[in-house]
């Protein structure tokens, strides 16, 4: 039984009478990486602020490393990356990180190494005003790694990062998890978290509608694979009528098939060389899963 460092139980938060979080229970164990997905306004940031002790819950309980959020031990155990943090432009990266290191009580010893780790060694003594958005985000990441936190709460960590920086970001998240940090990543950028997290939790309008591994969620949702059939010679309408698919443009038809009928459908289309020019197959991705769980029961 892994040690649950972040433990949220029946959390409820009201804002001017309306619930923004409703009975949310979610735990993250040491070394686990959990993605918290949801639309803007689904309650992700509110949940993180409660876990930081910046907001107080209206019901339920939250424990960070066994302590009440906002208490001394909880703050020592928690690292936080705010969404789109920009820092004071007049300070250098080294000065900003040194301030935070002093506040964290680690001293300025690890500062140079961390700046190096996030690729800011050359820019360390330049003012943050001259940094790009991605560099500021890296500086934000550097402070997450100060003092080996027990819990890391990352709010939209990939926003503003280029693809290479995203790779680096996930390498850093893996490193944190490997040293035993429980990592919670709030995001609406779905594609990147797909392969890099152990578990996925989805918030919809303040309610937790899914909380499982990607594989289990896929199985539960039973989402279809989409086949896009590129049809020869303007026969798209006819093909759509025959297969029950939907015509996307003059030459293509989309057919959806469940896990059990996929192979059969592929064989069928493959045996029509005179009419089918190409077949593209799209398995259900996180995007579809997310849409499924975020919409489910909405009507």
């Amino acid at each position, binding site marked *: 039984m892994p040690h649950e460092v972040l433990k949220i139980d029946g959390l409820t938060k009201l804002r001017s009478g309306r619930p923004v979080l409703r009975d949310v229970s979610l735990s993250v164990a040491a070394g686990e990486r959990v993605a918290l997905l949801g639309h803007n306004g689904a309650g992700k940031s509110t949940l993180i*602020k409660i876990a*930081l*002790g*910046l*907001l107080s819950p209206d019901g339920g309980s939250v424990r960070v490393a066994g302590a009440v959020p906002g208490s*001394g031990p909880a*703050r*020592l155990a*928690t*690292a*936080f990356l*705010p*969404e*789109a*943090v*920009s*820092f*004071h432009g*007049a*300070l250098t990266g080294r*000065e*900003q990180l040194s*301030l*935070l290191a*002093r*506040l*964290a*009580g680690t001293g300025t010893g690890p500062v140079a190494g961390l700046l190096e780790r996030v690729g800011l060694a050359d820019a360390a003594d330049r*003012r943050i005003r001259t940094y790009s958005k991605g560099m500021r985000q890296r500086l*934000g990441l550097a*402070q997450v790694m100060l003092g080996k936190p027990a819990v890391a709460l990352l709010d939209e960590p990939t926003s503003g990062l280029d693809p290479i920086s995203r790779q680096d970001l996930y390498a850093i998240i893996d490193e944190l998890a490997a040293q035993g940090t429980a990592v919670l990543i709030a995001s609406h950028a779905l594609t990147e978290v797909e392969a890099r997290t152990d578990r996925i939790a989805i918030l919809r309008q303040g309610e937790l509608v899914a909380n499982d591994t990607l594989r289990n969620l896929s199985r539960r949702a039973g989402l279809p694979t989409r086949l896009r059939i590129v049809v020869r010679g303007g026969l798209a309408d006819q093909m759509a009528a025959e297969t029950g698919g939907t015509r996307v443009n003059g030459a293509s038809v989309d057919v959806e098939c469940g896990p059990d009928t996929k192979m059969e459908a592929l064989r069928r289309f493959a045996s029509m060389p005179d009419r089918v020019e190409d077949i593209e197959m799209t398995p259900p991705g996180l995007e579809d899963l997310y849409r499924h769980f975020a919409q489910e029961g909405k009507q």
Partner: protein
Amino acid sequence: MTARVLAVARSEMTILLRNRWLFLATLIMVLFALALTFAGSAPTGSLGADRLLVSVASMTTLSVYLAPLLALMMSFDAIAGDSERGTLALLLSYPAGRGEILLGKYLAQLAALAFALTVGFGLAGAAAGLTGGTSPESLAALLRLIGTSILLGGVFLAFGHFLSALAGSPAAAAGAAAALWLVFVVLYDLGLLGAVVLDSGGVFTTTFFPWVMVANPADAFRLWNVAASEGVAMTTGMTGVAGSLPAWAAPLSIVLWLGITFGLAWAAFRRLEP
């Protein structure tokens, strides 16, 4: 506790140095103090006071306007700016209490303000003393001016933090700071003046007026300097009001205001949700 306060203060001081605030504040103080000292040196002979004393009297009036202004300009961004940049939520997630963050910023800004005031008044005072002579009384008046100006600045620094924590954005905080300065430094006195004119020597003027006046920290600062030195009182023409109040009234007012404004700033910051 102190290590974290010092860390915040150190960072804030770096910012004040970087964005040239310390330099600008000092430059403004030096220029105005020197200009007033030499422009105000003409009536020296007729009053029998040395030039330094006359200079201190002019600089007292200057400080009523400038010390609160510089203090508010240094402090209005302190909390609202961090909040807008997203750094406030980050700072508050660290093991530093809100009191420690507030105190650290306050101390750095107070030190910068004290530096600007000391250099400005000190240089102008030295120039006046070298060209027009000094006396123990005028030297004491100069030291008192510097000390009380720092206290007055301290009151308005805390006011600035209060507004900064209360306002949602740096722009709103700046606007509120300008309004506050106008009320305390300009409009309050104008209102009092109007009341005295309307009252024309009645009960308000003789009994309440001095107390209403001393209730404003800016006026309390003025009265404190005037009451403590006969020469300054003579050259500013405020002997009447200063004489009708007990000596403790003005210092008490400033000290109370320091407590009130710091309390307000702390209460507003504590309730702030980043």
